[in-house]
């Protein structure tokens, strides 16, 4: 009856939710995670808090992981990755490679939840000086500083007096090839801006943007409080280049509502980098033989009404492996993937394979 099992690849927000969903439906689940810990990118990149709820990220992810490891139907293998997949829905054989060597596990269906990675702001021709200037950071760098409550300029160890975010770095850009909106960066930047203001009340915080995309409740949960209660300054107009000027950073761009060029001195510049498919997502797509869209994310041909069914029968995807996703998207697609994966088993039971 080992064919009754479902294998979930990836132990981040989507993978954990998917595995929990499978177990909650009364089915055995095996979660495979190449890292040595559960929690995915929020834990690996040391996020300070969950965007939206402001809950401590490590605590929130540990709660999710704890629920899964307590389940009698769930088994977790860390330091393990998938290397092959054979068979058809209801009767699949997935090759795994882990600390104890490689083995082949039978399963009914597979859920891929291998996530995203942050756009590398040193790539391409964006003149933001991410690798030149120590005080130019990316969203996840600041997350880690916020978690340690130690927001300081790497160049001199002093807290910044002026800090700005630059939105849409590596997103919405035909030149770079990422034509999509990464969906979470406006909310994450605004959340981090609030946290900077809370930790450093004397630091002025600016957000330079093309459009603020604060979906749904983020508008009133994050955007409006950032502006109204935490006095974050939103400036419509994107930054084109960052220059060093007398030990500080000069950001240059156009203030589009004023129709005038702007040159503003900052102590720290935070690049709101977007999402790209993770190395794991690309690798799994290749190994499992899943069609990818032009950006490398796993393709869901039935989208938007079926967001989780991949091109290969019996394999489903969840979370940011499918494209830019916030945590709500991860929870939603994970739930649907769990349902689809279990229904494969139930159908094969009825047919009697």
């Amino acid at each position, binding site marked *: 009856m080992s064919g009754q099992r479902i294998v979930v690849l990836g132990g981040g927000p989507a993978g954990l939710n998917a595995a929990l969903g499978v177990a909650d439906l009364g089915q055995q689940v095996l979660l495979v995670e190449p890292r040595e810990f559960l929690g995915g990118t929020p834990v690996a990149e040391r996020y300070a808090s969950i965007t939206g709820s402001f809950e401590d990220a490590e605590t929130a992810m540990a709660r999710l992981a704890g629920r899964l490891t307590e389940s009698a139907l769930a088994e977790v293998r860390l330091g393990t990755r998938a290397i092959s997949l054979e068979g058809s829905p209801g009767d699949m054989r997935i090759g795994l490679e882990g600390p104890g060597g490689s083995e082949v596990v039978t399963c009914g269906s597979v859920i891929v939840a291998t996530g995203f990675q942050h756009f*590398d702001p040193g790539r391409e021709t964006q*003149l933001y000086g991410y690798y030149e200037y120590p005080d130019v950071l990316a969203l996840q760098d600041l997350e880690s500083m916020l978690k340690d409550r130690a927001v300081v300029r790497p160049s001199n160890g002093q807290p910044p007096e002026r800090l700005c975010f630059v939105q849409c770095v590596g997103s919405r850009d035909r030149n770079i090839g990422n034509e999509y909106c990464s969906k979470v960066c406006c909310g994450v930047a605004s959340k981090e801006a609030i946290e900077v203001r809370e930790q450093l009340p004397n630091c002025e915080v600016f957000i330079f943007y093309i459009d603020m995309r604060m979906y749904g409740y983020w508008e009133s949960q994050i*955007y409006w409080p950032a*502006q109204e209660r935490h006095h974050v300054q939103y400036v419509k107009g994107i930054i084109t280049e960052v220059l060093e000027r007398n030990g500080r950073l000069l950001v240059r761009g156009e203030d589009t509502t004023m129709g005038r060029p702007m*040159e*503003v001195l900052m102590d720290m510049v935070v690049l709101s980098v977007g999402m790209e498919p993770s190395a794991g997502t690309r690798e799994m797509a290749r190994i499992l033989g899943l069609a990818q869209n032009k950006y490398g994310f796993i393709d869901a041909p039935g989208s938007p009404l079926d967001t989780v069914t991949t091109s290969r029968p019996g394999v489903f995807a969840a979370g940011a492996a499918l494209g830019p996703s916030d945590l709500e998207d991860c929870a939603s697609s994970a739930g649907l993937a769990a349902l689809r994966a279990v229904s494969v088993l139930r159908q094969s039971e009825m047919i009697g394979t």
Partner: protein
Amino acid sequence: MPVGGRKQPPVVVEKPEATAVSTISGRSWELPGMWNRMFEPRVLSDYTATGFARIAGLPGGESLEWCYGCGKCVPVCPVDLVGEYGPRKIHRKVQTGMDLFSSDDLWLCTSCANCLRVCPKEVDMTKVMPAVREAAIGDGMVPAELQDVFEKTFRNGNCLGENPRRRNAWTRAAGVPVRVLPTDPGAVDVLFYVEDYWSYHPRGQQAAQCFARILAALDVDFAILGPEEKTLGDSQRVAGEKGLFEALMEDVAATLDKYEFKRIVTPDPHGFNALKKVYPKYGHNYEVSHYTQFLAPLVDKIPFRSEVRHRVTFHDPCYLGRHNGEYDAPRTILDAIPGIELVEMGRCRENGYCCGGGGGGMWLDGFTANHTSERLSERRVREAAETGADVLAVCCPYEVSRFEDAAKSTGNDQLRVMDIVELVDMAMGGTGAV
């Protein structure tokens, strides 16, 4: 994680001075002044949150920084239509380093509240501007013509600097007895709070006389305060003189305490606004209505005797309409007057265009003229004329003089400006007919 190629820091090239080169002679010129700026626009660099911090520290100033720049306010701002001022622009200018306290922009808002009506973030310029103006006045930064009105109000209890003893001079030609409480105390039903322009301005006095005749015809038990009446000072408050407003209020409340009356009826939407919305915050509560609200339920009892054959359009006062939500009472009265054909202007009711007189604009004519292509009242009169109306009906004492001047200056002499009570009086066969 892939690491991209290291980029060399970009080389900064200092631009040479802007020059123009003739394609014919090959000569070149340096371009000074505004021509130079066309090539090298001034760079904005003073971005800061400190401007908002100072404004938000003033009671009422909190909401300016709530603006997220949608710009819905600008197309409905009456001042923007004839000039450069616009509420969103104030937000951005403060963010880019403008000191609102010393800026001319501070005095251009008429507090008409049309921006607040459309603002998704509820940025309330009708509170921001008075708060910042109060601080600016405290620092001695106030346009001279407005300061002059403040001083007149302080000395005389009215914005026109008129003798308080002549406040009820208009009653002599009213044609009906008008009881003056200080000389004839005793309980009365309606206290007719005349306010400054109906007390002193010649055209206002005519309207006051019309209203007295209408009250008499309706057998209303009414009286005025006469020499003891002082302005309610709402526009002085919005123009930034909160201290003067509060001092006036204490005088007014003490005077009102002396007399027994049931309710207050006033022709001035600004005074009405003060009594209805501001006085209660200080513990002074009265039953108050604008005269149109008082007359509207009584139109069936008004003894109309003749038809008023006019095509009439009506201008909504900002402080009766948007500020206090009354759009129907004036129209109920106009509809009841026999013979009148009422036509609406494009901007009416909730979107009514401001006459320019509110928030101190009444007393900043010269100052505002330096920043606008035409007066708001002139813009409004041209709209009224476009309807084909021959009468522009109003029910705010500021407006008769403003619109009569504007009708002349825009060449619309065919347009007569009349208060609603003048039209009612005309239909009653009174002497108020123009």
